[in-house]
């Protein structure tokens, strides 16, 4: 196994996770459950292909993709913050809605029930192995940037306050609702970018192309204990397992299904607290009446 090709492949696989997990960290630190990452990614991927297809420029696709994630994030925010709906139920609904909406518009715009036509993307130089894609570099930067935002800026302080002690935050004049709206919107844009990377990398949209990646991202958030850098490390770890699975294909050393399970098993172990409990933000998922 060539270590360079292993590393480059691992990073390419990790990029969508890095975007989505960073989004998940922000929303959950503000107290809003992020089971919606899968739906945000899927809508971002579709909107990116739509924008790229009609403009011919992947940069327009990046913008429309962010918008796609943002729209679904705003639905999520209005339902859970304004209407105080159950965050888990809304999460399930958003994911189903994203599958439905992308399927319907795939049919409407591209007259297909499986995939869009081929669209432009970034880079494409074989020798660069994907590293001539600006989104890849953005993906590598997003976790440190989010760590800075969460721990070193006033906005980040408010996000953490909203997620840990919303009443205390309100009492010093912070609008918890506004902070949560902003955090969920940001998570939609970031997870949407994860979808954009995925779609432009494959140069097309295919039905349910995120294939559970949003749930791997949420695993990384939990396994990384709601910390941006640790979540990013978890993303890289899960991507490494996936790369191993791909590179071992055909060797029959270990069934691929067991490698697929690794992120989920690790998350359950982290939640059960066998090696140090993963403790969520105190106000996560709680709705004040």
């Amino acid at each position, binding site marked *: 196994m060539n270590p360079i090709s292993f590393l480059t492949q691992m990073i390419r696989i990790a990029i969508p996770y890095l975007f989505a997990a960073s989004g998940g960290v922000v929303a959950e630190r503000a107290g809003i459950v992020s089971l919606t990452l899968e739906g945000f990614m899927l809508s971002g991927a579709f909107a990116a292909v739509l924008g790229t297809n009609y403009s011919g420029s992947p940069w327009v696709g990046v913008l429309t993709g962010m918008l796609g994630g943002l729209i679904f994030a705003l639905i999520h925010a209005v339902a859970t913050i304004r*209407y105080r*709906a159950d965050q888990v139920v*809304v999460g399930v609904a958003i*994911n189903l*809605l994203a599958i439905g909406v992308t399927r*319907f518009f795939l049919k409407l715009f591209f007259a297909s029930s499986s995939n869009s036509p081929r669209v432009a993307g970034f880079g494409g130089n074989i020798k660069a192995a994907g590293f001539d894609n600006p989104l890849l570099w953005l993906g590598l930067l997003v976790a440190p940037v989010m760590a800075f935002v969460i721990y070193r800026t006033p906005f980040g302080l408010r996000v953490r306050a909203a997620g840990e002690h919303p009443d205390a935050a309100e009492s010093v004049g912070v609008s918890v609702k506004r902070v949560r709206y902003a955090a969920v919107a940001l998570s939609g844009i970031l997870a949407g970018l994860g979808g954009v990377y995925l779609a432009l990398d494959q140069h097309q949209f295919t039905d349910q192309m995120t294939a559970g990646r949003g749930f791997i991202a949420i695993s990384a958030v939990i396994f990384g204990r709601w910390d941006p850098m640790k979540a990013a490390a978890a993303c890289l770890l899960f991507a490494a397992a996936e790369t191993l699975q791909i590179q071992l294909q055909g060797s029959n050393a270990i069934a691929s299904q067991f490698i697929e399970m690794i992120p989920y098993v690790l998350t359950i172990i982290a*939640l*059960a607290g066998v090696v140090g409990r993963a403790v969520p933000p105190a106000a996560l998922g709680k709705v004040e009446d």
Partner: protein
Amino acid sequence: MTGSPLAAEIKPTVSGAPWRERAEEALIPPLVALLVALICGDLLILSYGQSPAAVYRLLLEGTWGNAYGFGQVLYKATTLAFTGLAVSYGLRAGLFNIGAESQLAAGGFAAALTGLALPVGTPLILALPICMIAAGLAGGAVGSVPAYLKTRFGAHEVIVTIMLNFIVLALLNWFIAGHLHVPETLHTPEIHAGVLPRLADIDSRFHGSAANLALIVAALVAIAVWFYLFRARGGYELRAVGLQPQAAEYGGISVGRVWMRALTFSGVIAGMGGINYVLGYKHYYEDGFASGAGFMGIAVALVGRNHPFGVLIAAFFFATLSQGGLAIHAFVPKQMMDVLQGVVILAVAMAVPEVRRVLRSARRRADA
């Protein structure tokens, strides 16, 4: 037994038509959701340049208007009833089982293996209970994992059941793809015993539809769940824990034990749903047969307002949507129904707390 001033004080709140308040709180959200879904449906149909009235008529004709379509609705409703009952049973205890998907798959897998292991010619009266017990045990085994992790370590059941879905489905895929499949397919051989009669065997007008006797089993399970929840001591404890765990604990109920039982049994119900596909329809386990039915169970429980009979009605409604998509496909893509399902769940989720708030503040104003 009159005359106590205390009883006189309590009386108005007890007798003040609470059934009407409860009925309003239970029925208005699904009706609001239906209205929202109809409007969204109109917009989607118009975006495709078709007439909403014509498409809706086609939808009704293709689902309730002929025996085949109706049979298909009943078949789809059966699986949804099982997963919906499973989710609502957990929710009554305040627990969110998102693992119905993998519990259903595990149940179907166990039912198929049992049907394969039984000798050819085992009478149905024997084979059905054996297969159902196997299916229930498998579903319950999957359900007991989040139950144990919740009571022992406090691990949140939502995350554990989601993660477990992926793990169990990958495990079943490994069994099927690696060991048990008929060559060139992803399903097991056909079962030797336990095949359920179809509705078409009783009334030939249902010919071709997959509706089968599992339908009756689902109705019986719903009645059993209703009886347990509202007429048995264990069900009372379960609901008490669901409403207010601290108060229940203070009242002498072991919350941990109730949680353990509720999540495990939720898995049992979902697992038993596997018989509809395996014993009733295909007579083998096929990889991916449960796909989507678990998540739709959440929608069914929500719209059915967590009442066993409400769940049956909601299952019928969502099955109609799903079958209706096929009926209108020539005019509007069936994917429209995927959108509407999401819209219905979202609308109910938003309407439930909102309707409660509006009704309560209206009552407070009426009282003042």
